[in-house]
């Protein structure tokens, strides 16, 4: 049995990344698109931490992952505010029905 190593984590993050891309591309609901983005960011973070454990990245990978989490938090707050505004204006959050920049 192959011991758990770098490749296992990389393959797992590739699967999570692809699932996130699929969610972003196919879902109509803007909030589900945001969830797909969070999946993608988590996949990237797994890569950072895996390389800092098995590669030569050391703690720098941890730092990059922390900044990714910080930016994800900021992005989620702004995106949710925008989604709430869109809902107020269009009374829907389906991204395929929102095709105007203003009323």
């Amino acid at each position: 049995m192959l011991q758990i190593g770098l490749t296992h984590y990389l393959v797992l993050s590739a699967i999570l990344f692809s699932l996130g891309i699929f969610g972003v591309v196919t879902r109509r609901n803007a909030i589900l698109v945001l969830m797909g983005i969070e999946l993608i960011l988590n996949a990237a973070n797994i890569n950072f931490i895996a390389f800092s454990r098995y590669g030569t990245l050391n703690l720098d990978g941890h730092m990059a992952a922390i900044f990714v989490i910080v930016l994800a938090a900021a992005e989620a707050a702004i995106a949710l505010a925008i989604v709430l505004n869109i809902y107020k204006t269009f009374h829907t959050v389906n991204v395929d029905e929102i095709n105007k920049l203003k009323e």
Partner: protein
Amino acid sequence: MSLIDILFYFFATIAVVSASIVVFSRNIIYSAFSLLFTFFAVAGLYVLLNADFLAITQLLIYVGGILVLMLFGVMLTHKVVSVDMKTGTLKILPAALITSMIAGTLIGIFTVTDWKVAPLQTGDPMPTAKAIGEMFMTTWLLPFEVASVILLIALIGAAIIARRDKEEK
């Protein structure tokens, strides 16, 4: 199989299964709650990778912050009582095709490449919080300050965007 291997496959299975539910479920509430399990599984993987501080940060910020924001978004943009919470999908087939191509390419590259692997450090894993704190205050000081400014901007910006209609009237 050692305990680490079993735990890795356990967390990996949870992560992949719950991420699939997030992506494929028709009910948006199910998606939001299975995202919780994905975040927990990823935090468990961080622990397996000796990243204790990252695991706690993941739990605090993703589970405690971002997921609650997502649930707020779901509740505020759907008529929870009357209309069902179903949500549609667009163009499943081409998206599945392209995504599986992306996944195949990535996995192929990841498995074929001969990664430069450092010799594994043996012995008990060291706690990382102290070292991370020192790095924040020395080599990573500028990104740290920029991140704090970005968080402030996001805070003010989100408040202004969400309340904008009152000022215009």
